[in-house]
Structure formats: structure tokens, C-alpha cells
């Protein structure tokens, strides 16, 4: 019963997310509403970690599999993609590398600065 109950809670939250997605006029998907709702429920103690933990770990473990159909779907969009493939490929590769490098370096730099400052405060 453990997984049934845990999975039930996660599905119920997904459902509330779907309702919000339908009612609120913003392009925010059900999954993101659901993520925020579950986080709030965990933080406020309404849902305890042990009530969703195992099913969540399982879902996250199999998550990469869920992207395979979308990847295989590229087969179908190849015809529309082909005419602008070169610019699309260059933009995709360059911007993905740039975003990863910039967001990582900025986060790291701010963390390093504040830990250094904390260190000086200790002295």
C-alpha cells in the first residue's frame, strides 16, 4: 500500500496543477504548479517527507526514460527542421554552452565571495 498511497498524493497534486493550468491565464504547465504546491506542502508540514519520499525517488529514477519518445519524435519534425537546420544547430549549441557556463560561473562566484566574507567575519 505504501506506493499506492504515495503515488496517489503525487497524482492528486498533479491534478490540482492541471486545474490551475486551465484556470490561470499564464503559460505555466501543471507540472510546475504541482512542484511548487508539493514544496509548500512539505515546508508547511501538511505532507510529510515519508508520505511521498519513496514514490518520488522512483519517479525521478525513471525520469530519463520519459524523454525518449520526445527525442525519437525528432524523426517526425525533421522535415520542418531541415530548411533552417544550420542556424538552428549553431544557435542551439552556442547558446546552450554559453548559458551553462555563465549561470554556473555567476552562481559559483557569488557563493565564493560570500563564503570568503563569512570567513573574514569569523576572524
Amino acid at each position, binding site marked *: 500500500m505504501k506506493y499506492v498511497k504515495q503515488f496517489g498524493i503525487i497524482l492528486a497534486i498533479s491534478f490540482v496543477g492541471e486545474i490551475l493550468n486551465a484556470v490561470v491565464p499564464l503559460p505555466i504547465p501543471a507540472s510546475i504548479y504541482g*512542484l*511548487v504546491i508539493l514544496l509548500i506542502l512539505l515546508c508547511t508540514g501538511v505532507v510529510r517527507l515519508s508520505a511521498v519520499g519513496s514514490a518520488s525517488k522512483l519517479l525521478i529514477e525513471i525520469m530519463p*526514460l520519459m524523454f525518449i519518445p*520526445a527525442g525519437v519524435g525528432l524523426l517526425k519534425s525533421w522535415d520542418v527542421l531541415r530548411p*533552417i537546420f544550420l542556424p538552428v544547430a549553431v544557435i542551439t549549441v552556442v547558446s546552450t554552452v554559453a*548559458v551553462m*557556463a*555563465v549561470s*554556473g560561473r555567476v552562481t559559483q562566484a*557569488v557563493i565564493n565571495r560570500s563564503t570568503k566574507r563569512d570567513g573574514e567575519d569569523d576572524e
Partner: protein
Amino acid sequence: MSEVLSDSAFFGVLISISAYGLGFLLKKKFKLAIFNPLLISIIITVAALLLLNIDYDAYNEGAEYLNWFLTPATVALAVPLYEQLSLLRKNFAAIILGIVSGVLTSLVCVFLMALAFGLSHTEYVTMLPKSITTAIGMGVSEELGGYVTISVAVIVITGVLGNVIAPFICKLFRIKNPVAKGIAIGTSSHAVGTTKAMEMGEVEGAMSSLSIAVSGILTVGGASIFAQFI
């Protein structure tokens, strides 16, 4: 033969899962980033469909059950995030600055290169939501009048690319802090990248999950402003 395979509800999922397992074994054996289980399983599944002459729609009839799990799995990302909440509080400024700078980099990069390639307005807005999670990105593309199918394709390619190159890029740019790694991966390559971050560690995974939501929401606003530039 191909009709039996096309009609089967399990064949599509089975081949995807087996290919993923094979990719995992290859990676374990050769320890090379190019043997990325997700990339390998996509390539093998595409090859199998082409060789056995199976239509994508027939494959997807079985495979879409995998897709069904995506919303609950994304909701479940709240759990690792909750477990790392103290780390989030402690590094709040760094995390927000990191994600905001990443979102801006994405929009500026797409804008500059769209100018350089002389893309039309429609092609340009199609590319704007490329770094965010599919469900939000589709909505953004549609709202701005882009080609939604191409947006989805580009978002998937970005995710798989981020998943494959993340360890290499972190090394190249000396991104060592696990919080920074997670933010870098989630902001650049959404949920598909996040599965790689989860493999790297709990902190990386949690921070990457957070970035999916925050960068997605920031891009909704940012893209509508940038859409007016071309």
C-alpha cells in the same frame, strides 16, 4: 512482422528501455560522455523504427505511456529540493543571480545570432524559449507566434545536448561547486539536463530542479520583451 510490432503496446517502450540499459552499460564500460544513455537510446530507437519500417505514431501509441509519467515526475522533483532547502536558503542570492544571468544569456545569445543569420520574426521567436522545459516553452512559442513543432524539437535537442555535455562544460569552465553545477545544468537544459544533474549528486539534482521552474517562469516574461526586438 512489422505490423505485429506496430500493433504491440509494449514493443515501443521495450525497445526504448532496452536501448537505455545498453547505453548505461556502454557508459559504465567506456566512461565516455558520448555514451550517454539517453542519446544512445534515442539513436537506437530511431534506427530500429527506420529498419523495421515502423511509423512514429505507431511507436508512440505505446511510448506515450512513458510521457504520461512526466507531470507526476516533475512534481516529485519537489522532494530533493525540499531535502536541500537549507542550502537553498543559505545560497539564495547566488542562486537567483545565477539563474537570472543564465536566462538573460540565453535570450541575448538567441537575439544576436538570429540577427547574424537574418532569421525572420517567426523563426526568431521560435528559438527564444529553447532552454526551458517543453511544457512552458511550447506555451511561450505559441503565444509569440512561433513554429511550435520546431520549438519543441529545439527544446528537446537542447536538453539532450545539455545532458551529454554537462560534465565536460563544468570541467572546462572550472564549475566545481555542486550548487553552481546544478544551477548551470537546470538553467541551460531544463528537465532533460536535470536527470544528468541527479546522477551527479543530490545537491546538483535539487538545484537543477529549482532552476527548471525559476528559469521557465522568468523566460515567460523575458521572451515577450525580447520578441519585440526583431
